[in-house]
């Protein structure tokens, strides 16, 4: 009985599958027939088109022959005359026009075969940025490297050059000259000089050389491209200005339908301003390098509103020092031995698709957590017990674009000193930006900086400052991914 049931079931399945297969075979045959009919129709139509084209070619050939015959009939027996404008024979006019046209074509062809020495030159652009400022307190009370009172200085003159290296990579260089705070002379340095791959598989990209490592949101943005005049305090203090490194960085676009981007890198320093370079001493172990990573994603909350969050980390496991001995208000000195940074960043934007050149609202914020380990020595140089310092800092800005040329905003800064978390600094900066054009921009910003009592032990005092930033661009300028 069981065998019978099994056989019947199998037979039914076979019939069903045969039916389905037969049905599907029928469908396939029908589809094939339809395709064949369509192809036959297409072929007939193609043949008709071909026939018409051949007819057109014949007609044009006849016309060319007739024109040639006409030209030959009208050809003068004497040597060719210069055009006088009095020729009445139409063939002569036509011949003259054809001759002029031929000469022009030959000139153009000849011009195109010329080569120029600079034909392989990179795209070059130049950025200038001047800061006019007034600070109520001197630099000893503000901790700034610029003097208090009235000040004007060329914060940067940047030359940017970029080009393809070969089918596999491109390269770029950013050379920057900025006014030395003491001498006023322009000190030229290479901010970035890196090679970037363009055709690696598996959504990978490698960048190597000198560049700004990808940490957070604003640390790898150049000064003149920041949404505010000065880099937020927490980035200046915990990273050291821009996240400049000499190293290598790998970027991976995860193979998902949703945008998720992962970056990881290593380099011999992280942070561009002195006293940031890591001291390698006689021999740099791998623990003397800096390692960083960032994971970011993106959400379209509505067609006009977007959210882009990210998390970042940086670790320098072991160094001889970073910036030498750091003198403290109590007379002791700290020498940094290990450095850790964790960051979370968020950008929430409202950019209406229709009006995004004229209207937008952007909120950007970053919170950084610093954990550094220091060797401590007293004023006489005697070693004291080492110390780990945990510190927090953040910036948050709101930028409201109400016209193509005008943006107004506000920046809030708060940072605990990386060597003394009890010393805190706050800053409040309203600003307004006037972009006369895409390449010419003025920004007026007022900043009130406040310190708490622990911070004032370092000699820092609350301060009022006004800045006018004027930035301009000439030459080649591309809209990079960072400007999204």
């Amino acid at each position: 009985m069981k065998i019978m049931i099994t056989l019947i079931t199998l037979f039914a399945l076979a019939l069903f599958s045969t039916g389905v297969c037969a049905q599907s075979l029928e469908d396939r045959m029908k589809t094939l027939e339809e395709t064949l009919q369509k192809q036959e129709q297409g072929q007939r139509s193609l043949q008709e088109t071909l026939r018409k084209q051949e007819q057109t070619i014949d007609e044009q050939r006849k016309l060319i022959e007739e024109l040639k015959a006409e030209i030959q009939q009208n050809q003068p027996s004497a040597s060719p005359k210069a055009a006088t404008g009095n020729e009445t024979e139409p063939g002569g006019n036509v011949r003259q026009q054809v001759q002029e046209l031929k000469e022009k074509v030959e000139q153009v062809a000849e011009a195109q075969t010329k080569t120029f020495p600079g034909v392989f030159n990179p795209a070059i652009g130049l950025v200038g940025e001047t800061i006019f400022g007034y600070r109520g307190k001197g630099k000893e009370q503000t901790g700034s490297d610029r003097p208090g009172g009235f000040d004007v200085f060329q914060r940067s003159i940047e030359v940017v050059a970029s080009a393809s290296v070969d089918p596999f990579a491109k390269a770029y260089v950013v050379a920057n000259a900025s006014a030395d705070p003491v001498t006023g002379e322009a000190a030229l340095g290479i901010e970035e000089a890196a090679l970037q791959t363009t055709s690696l598989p598996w959504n990978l990209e490698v960048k190597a050389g000198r560049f700004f490592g990808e940490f957070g949101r604003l640390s790898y943005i150049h000064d003149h491209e920041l949404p505010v005049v000065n880099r937020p305090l927490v980035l200046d203090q915990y990273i050291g200005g821009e996240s400049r490194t000499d190293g290598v960085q790998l970027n991976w676009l995860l193979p998902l339908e949703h945008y998720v981007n992962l970056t990881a890198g290593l380099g011999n320093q992280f942070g561009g301003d002195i006293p940031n370079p890591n001291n390698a001493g006689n021999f740099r172990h791998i623990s003397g390098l800096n390692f960083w990573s960032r994971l970011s994603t993106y959400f379209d909350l509505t067609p006009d509103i977007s959210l882009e969050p990210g998390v970042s980390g940086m670790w320098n496991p072991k160094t001889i020092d970073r910036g030498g001995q750091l003198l403290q208000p109590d007379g002791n000195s700290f020498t940094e031995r290990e450095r850790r940074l964790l960051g979370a960043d968020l950008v929430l934007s409202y950019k209406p698709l229709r009006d995004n050149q004229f209207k937008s609202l952007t909120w950007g914020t970053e919170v950084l957590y610093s954990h550094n380990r220091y060797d401590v020595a007293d004023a006489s140089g005697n070693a004291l017990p080492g110390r780990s310092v945990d510190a927090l800092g953040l910036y948050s800005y709101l930028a409201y674009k109400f016209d193509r040329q005008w943006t107004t905003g506000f920046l809030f800064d708060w940072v605990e000193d990386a060597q003394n978390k009890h010393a805190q600094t706050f800053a409040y900066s309203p600003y307004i930006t006037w972009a006369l054009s895409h390449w010419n921009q003025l920004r007026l910003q007022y900043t009130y900086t406040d310190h708490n009592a622990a911070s004032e032990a370092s000699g820092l005092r609350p301060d009022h400052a006004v800045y006018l930033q004027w930035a301009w661009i000439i030459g080649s300028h591309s809209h990079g991914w960072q400007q999204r």
Partner: protein
Amino acid sequence: MKSKLFPMILFVMILCLGTMPAHAAKIRVITTLTDLADFSRAVGGNLVEVRSLATGVEDTHGVPMKPSFVPILNRADLIILVGLDCEHAFLPALLEASKNPRIQPNKPGYVDCSKGVTPREVPKSIDHSEGDVHPDGNPHYMLDPVMAKIAISNIYNGLVAFAPQHKAEFTRNRNAYLAKLNTKIAEWEKETRPLRGTKFVSYHEHWPYFAARFGMVYFGTIELKPGVDPTPRHIQELSSSMKASHVPIVVREPQFPEKTPKRIAELTGATLVTLPIMPGGMPHTETYIKMMDYIVHSMVQAKK
């Protein structure tokens, strides 16, 4: 026996599934703007899956660089663009971020629809004193339906190069669409006869190709220079010259604020008309033909 029954049934079912016709994967086409998306759907038919980065309401130079475009571009088989530097503000960075080597410039998957277009207004000097100039000429040729046929031809060539086995179907689709478009072109040329010689201004220099095609005179722009907003002096000078030359129409593209075009229209007695620059830019303009119908009809009405 029971334990053997289930595997046998499963085996037979798998056999049947194996004989069912497989679904062919569609060609993933990404276009920068909506008119190209419309043409790509028309030529590609059921063989393509088309997505436009722009929705139609954006300024062509202001399409945002959204990270959500990156995975879409990463998977694309073809990127179809207007060319002539029209997309310089967003496409190069997006292509780099996409990490898709197939669609990078000069690769087979990079379809530049301006190939074969003779550009207008090629600048004699490439200098920012002339604003945001396009070094290769004015890129807004898609507003001339005859020039748009060149774009259709380039899309067709791109699709055929990618999938030559479907050439016959692409050819049929292209010919069918061109036949429809040619009929509409003839209608538009007839409908715009009263507009011949009519002068007009617009906010941005979107319209020289349209003007040349339909015999209108493109008098100038409200922008001081491309990408540079008008100064009060420019508005005054433009209004004076419009009055002196009897310019009856002010065109405002909906991406630009209404205030200045409206003021100029009031100062000069001209008619203000709002016109889309790509399909979807305004209601009832979802396709290229509908958009051109709207533009032509609105211009004719504005002249009356």
